[in-house]
């Protein structure tokens, strides 16, 4: 049951961890990832190499005694980053975008041959407050050459790589802090904010207003992170400051289809598995990483009335699966298990992935194929193999 876990202590608190995308879509697995640090006297962006997983490079003949050390992530290169790394995204194979607590958005270039990393473009203090207090840029998202950045100033900037002036500034995108932003479609982005709202913006529209607005519940619990279903883009999952996971069908109601009480502390990231979207991963301030397996949901027999998931410790499982009033019942056309949880009430496998109860927060996760990466405040990187994902 216990996954193969590799740990590397890196002497800085990791705020973000991201796999480099694969060179060819659908082929091969990436073995390079990037991390960003936060809350230190000087912060940095680092590139790492994860030595071949067991099936990967069979030609590598390691000295058995050194195997553990050999399998540790190895630092390729690093560079200083001004301010906390608030967000980190790959832009193709060689470029990285960071969002800084200083309000700056930077593009870094990683030269894989010389293993050098450096800034290639910077929008200095893109997000600001009228006073010169730092205004954090909280999140960036990219689609092709377009970058969208959001911040504590509630502003959204649309940037084009290689062009200095922003293509567009949406000054009143939000009254509050925008905590995360992702692209939904080519020119559509979705944001979550600190009052529990989810907004969809169409970047082609001249209006600064969102095209639609969704709410978690009546109370103002902040939403901290969001991810979209890799194939069904109307399905999004978001994590709240109260640790609740919410799933929306953006074609339908204002309120989430499913609310799953999950972590006991703020949920920092939620990630669908890119190739196996029935698997979802969340990490939290409470120091845990959960694996949500909904692949069994559709298959299990109905009417069992089982509520609880398994394995994720106390408070785990579906404590309440709320169907919002006005719901039109199950739509036979969607086969997405995330949308049918409430009506089917089927058993979902929930597994806590880190071995002991850890004490310090897990800030960031990323998954490619069978390896899940975690970045933590205990200044460690975890790389976990999850062979069970099918």
């Amino acid at each position, binding site marked *: 049951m216990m996954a193969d876990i590799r740990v590397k202590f890196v002497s800085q608190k990791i705020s973000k961890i991201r796999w480099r995308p694969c060179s060819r879509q659908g082929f091969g697995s990436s073995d390079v990832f990037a991390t960003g640090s936060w809350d230190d*006297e*000087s912060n940095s962006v680092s590139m790492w190499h994860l030595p071949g997983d067991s099936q990967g490079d069979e030609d590598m003949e390691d000295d058995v005694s050194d195997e553990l050390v050999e399998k540790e992530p190895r630092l390729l290169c690093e560079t200083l980053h*001004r*301010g906390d790394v608030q967000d980190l995204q790959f832009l193709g194979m060689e470029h990285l975008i960071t969002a800084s607590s*200083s309000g700056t958005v930077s593009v870094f270039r990683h030269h894989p041959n010389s293993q050098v990393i450096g800034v290639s473009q910077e929008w200095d*203090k893109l997000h*600001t*407050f*009228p*006073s*010169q207090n*730092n205004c954090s840029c909280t999140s960036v998202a990219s689609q092709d050459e377009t970058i969208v950045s959001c911040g504590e100033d509630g502003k959204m900037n649309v940037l084009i790589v290689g062009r200095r002036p922003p293509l567009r500034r949406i000054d009143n995108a939000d009254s509050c802090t925008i905590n995360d932003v992702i692209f939904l479609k080519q020119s559509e982005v979705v944001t979550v904010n600190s009052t529990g709202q989810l907004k969809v913006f169409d970047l082609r529209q001249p209006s600064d207003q969102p095209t639609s607005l969704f709410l978690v519940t009546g109370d103002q619990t902040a939403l901290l992170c969001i991810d979209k279903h890799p194939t069904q883009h109307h399905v999004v999952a978001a994590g709240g400051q109260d640790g609740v996971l919410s799933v929306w069908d953006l074609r339908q109601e204002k309120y989430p289809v499913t609310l799953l009480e999950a972590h006991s502390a703020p949920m920092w990231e939620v990630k669908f598995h890119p190739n196996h979207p029935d698997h979802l991963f969340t990490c939290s301030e409470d120091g845990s990483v959960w694996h949500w397996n909904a692949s069994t949901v559709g298959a299990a027999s109905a009417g069992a009335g089982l509520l609880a998931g398994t394995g994720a410790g106390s408070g785990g499982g579906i404590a309440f699966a709320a169907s919002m009033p006005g719901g039109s019942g199950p739509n036979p056309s969607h086969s997405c298990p995330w949308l049918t949880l409430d009506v089917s009430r089927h058993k979902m496998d929930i597994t806590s992935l880190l071995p002991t109860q850890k004490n310090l927060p897990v800030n960031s996760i990323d998954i490619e194929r069978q390896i899940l990466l975690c970045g933590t405040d205990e200044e460690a990187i975890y790389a976990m193999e999850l062979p069970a994902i099918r």
Partner: protein
Amino acid sequence: MFVAKNIQSDHKDLIHDVAYDFHGRRMATCSSDQTVKIWDLGEDGEWHLTANWKTHSGSVWRVTWAHPEFGQVIATCSFDRTAAVWEEMVGEKQHDGSLRTWLRRSSLVDSRTSVTDVKFAPKHLGLQLATCSQDGIVRIYEAPDVMNLNQWSLQNEISCKLSCSCVSWNTSRIHSPMIAVGSDDTNLSAGGKVQIYEYNDSTRKWNKVETIARIADPVYDLAFAPNLGGRNSHLLAIASKNLKIISIEPLRRDSTLSGQSGLTKFELKEVAEFNEHEQQVWRVSWNVTGTVLASSGDDSCVRLWKANYLGSWKCIAILTGDGSPQETDRPQFGQLQGNQSAGGDRSVGNAGVRNLPSGIMNLRRNTGWPSFNTKKDQSNVML
């Protein structure tokens, strides 16, 4: 391990006070050159000058920060007989590198003589300010509307009869508001130089509850230790002819007596007394948790004092300069060859900041370490 880093303040005269804001990201300095400077800790870990302006028409004695719940606010006091409240301006966008503007929100002009100290009250008392002056009067001001710093009303004037040099608020949330005032009157027969006042909610007056008679020598600074939840008594450090730490413990009110006077009775104990500063102690300052005291005095040394867990106070370290500035060429602690190059890249753009090498060690651990003769130690505690 021990690290020192020097910051060239560029004040044109002696610095009188350095105040660190609540969150440790900002620093204010004031000087005889009549200016105040504000320094901000940058993302690069260095202090950057972000404001510098003339605040008074005389030496600025003290500068102090209000709690950030009230915004970015400082208060100053000066030889020019005034105290002032300043707020950082927000609004117009400035180019990077230019200085920020601080606006004088209020000038407190009630004093007829040099205002020697100014202190904000602990935040649970709202936005209140205590000043003291050479004419022997402590004044308590209040801004009733925390959003409007232009309006400060003089709540109380306390006449201490003796020239005042310093004032300190007790930070306890449980005890009713309390201040200690020190006097630098050199007349030894003029009575105790430390007075303690307590605020009475029903009469809305400050009443003197104690005069510490045994301190007859002039007092130049005093400070209440931050109040730790578990501690029932209040610790007061006093800089006088020697360094004293006094514990002030409220006694249970006698119901019959309090009916008449309404005053709390206290038991005062001298917890520690040190003569190491040779002649005169100038200044005392507590750390965040109120467990280590820094004192400085005539011997040009800064000494750190800490209580061991049996409550007996010991000196744990001495800091001093390395002599006259003219002699900086000679080899000294912290200067090793080829050492400066390492810090080169970090000090770019910070002409005023000089990184200095650091040295190993040390606050001696076994100083202040308890001896294990239980009986003896317990008798010490009782003293």
